[in-house]
């Protein structure tokens, strides 16, 4: 069953002199197994929206439903419901705090009241999922490993809670290219193995590669939503919002402007290269 957002609105400091509407009237369904990219300008409400998905923030109005149940309804059951959605913050390594990598990753499962044996199994498999060598680093301080590893420790801490839905707020920000690629591979694999993923990102080439669907927020409202080719096809609107567009789509647009070929599938470089090569070999015939 999916996550359903119904008329979700959040107003910071409601009623106060500086009341700010962060998100307004958002209706969105996140289906099981999809990898939804949430894009939008800084301040568009992406992070606020993300923090509603596991009940960390409460809506001012509207509802968040998981399996048809309101996750903000009172009672112990809804607390368990929220464990199914794992949220990884921006720069999550800033929140590492335990003495050892093991204890840090075990913190979430321990909080869930699991047995030591169950916790141990979960820590091992979570570390395995993000490519962290268990024996080598379990007893090390999480503060003396590399930046990329710190990020993956933080991610493992959330994965150890075995969430069905993983919400990632700019997971690759500030990482070097190698650490970024490793992390994106982990995310892609988790998605392939059935985890529903919601990923906030500014890196459009990553979004183009991974997302099965894209939702665009502007000034707290959901303004666009659809398959990557559809969303990235609306080039002018995206750039008008100050968003990046994958370079392949920038090229497709430039070629069209110059009276050149129409390249339909621009957002993945591989398929763009296929279309362009076919077009050039055909001497300007069919690009598709």
């Amino acid at each position, binding site marked *: 069953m999916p996550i359903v957002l119904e008329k979700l609105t959040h107003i910071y400091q409601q009623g106060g002199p500086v009341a700010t509407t962060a998100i307004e009237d958002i209706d969105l369904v996140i289906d099981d197994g999809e990898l939804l990219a949430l894009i939008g*300008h*800084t301040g568009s409400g992406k992070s606020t929206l993300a923090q509603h998905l596991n009940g960390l923030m409460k809506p001012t109005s509207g509802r968040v439903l998981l399996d048809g149940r309101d996750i903000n309804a009172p009672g112990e059951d809804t607390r368990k419901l929220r464990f199914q959605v794992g949220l990884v913050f921006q720069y999550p390594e800033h929140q590492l705090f335990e003495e050892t990598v093991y204890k840090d990753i075990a913190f979430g499962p321990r909080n869930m009241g699991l047995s030591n044996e169950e916790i141990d199994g979960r820590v091992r498999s979570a570390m395995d999922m993000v490519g962290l060598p268990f024996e080598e680093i379990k007893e090390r301080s999480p503060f003396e490993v*590399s*930046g*990329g590893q710190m990020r993956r420790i933080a991610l493992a801490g959330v994965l150890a809670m075995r969430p069905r839905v993983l919400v990632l707020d700019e997971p690759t*920000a*500030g*990482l*070097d*290219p*190698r*650490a*970024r*690629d490793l992390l994106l591979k982990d995310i892609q694999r988790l998605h392939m193995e059935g985890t529903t993923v919601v990923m906030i990102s*500014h890196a459009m*080439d990553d979004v183009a590669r991974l997302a099965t669907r894209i939702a665009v927020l502007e000034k707290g409202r959901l303004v666009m939503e659809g398959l990557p080719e559809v969303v990235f096809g609306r080039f002018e609107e995206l750039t008008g919002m*100050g*968003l*990046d567009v*994958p*370079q*392949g789509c*920038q*090229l497709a647009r*430039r*070629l069209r402007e*110059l*009276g*050149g*070929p129409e390249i339909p599938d621009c957002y993945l*470089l*591989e398929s*763009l*290269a*296929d279309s*362009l*090569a076919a*077009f*050039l*070999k055909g*001497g*300007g015939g069919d690009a598709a």
Partner: protein
Amino acid sequence: MTDIAHLVCDQVTYRYEPQAEPAVKDISLVIPRGQFTAILGHNGSGKSTLAKLLNGLFLPSEGRITVSGMDTREEKHTWDIRQAAGMVFQNPDNQLVATRVYDDVAFGLENIGVPTEEMPPRIDEALRLTGMAEYADRPPHLLSGGQKQRVAIAGILAMQPQALILDEATAMLDPQGRKEVFDTVARLNREQGITVVWITHFMEEAARAQRVMVMDHGAMAMDGTPREIFSRVEEVRALRLDVPPMTKLAHLLIARGIKAARDVLTVEEMAREVKRLCPSCWKN
């Protein structure tokens, strides 16, 4: 100080501990005055260590570094060098100290003992050059990330440096903030002739530099124009770095039997390349 060679490393090695593996290994380079150089490389490749060597925060374990002819190891030059080669770091929130943008820019000047009456014109000029003049009275914590970095840069500019060394100054910014900061620094380089050392993980930023250096395991692995460096796709990939998307596309086309140039960097160049490859494909 009209020397051409601005920042010079002569066989520089640096170790954090006497017995440790060097973080920077036998690097010799000359960065001419007014050049915009990008440095790429993984975390741990030695980029940040090199940056800190270049403004005298670290002193070489072996070899010699000069900034405008001043040897960084000579204590009498320390302050002149730090002032001549200002550094901007990654996290904008760690660099701002005052409650008002104007005071933040003044802070550095007070530190180096600039007479009070000389401060206002220097602060105004620094804020103007970074496009932050209208924010002079704002509290820094309410600014966007890109604006905070521009204030940090203004604080350094007020000290009238001849070189700016930026260590992943855009890593924590959104695309708009990145562009703001990059464009500001590029303009300072172009219009004020300030030498720039720009450390980054973003290939599209490196593509806009005049020169790209790639570091690996503390050593200088590649050094050339962006066009030379990125056209060597296999080597760049072997260092586990990326090439700009349009360079990648050019190589994908070559792999599909199209005779595209190997050194395409930008969307505009790729559009021209497609036009060159098939002149008859165009309506006009």
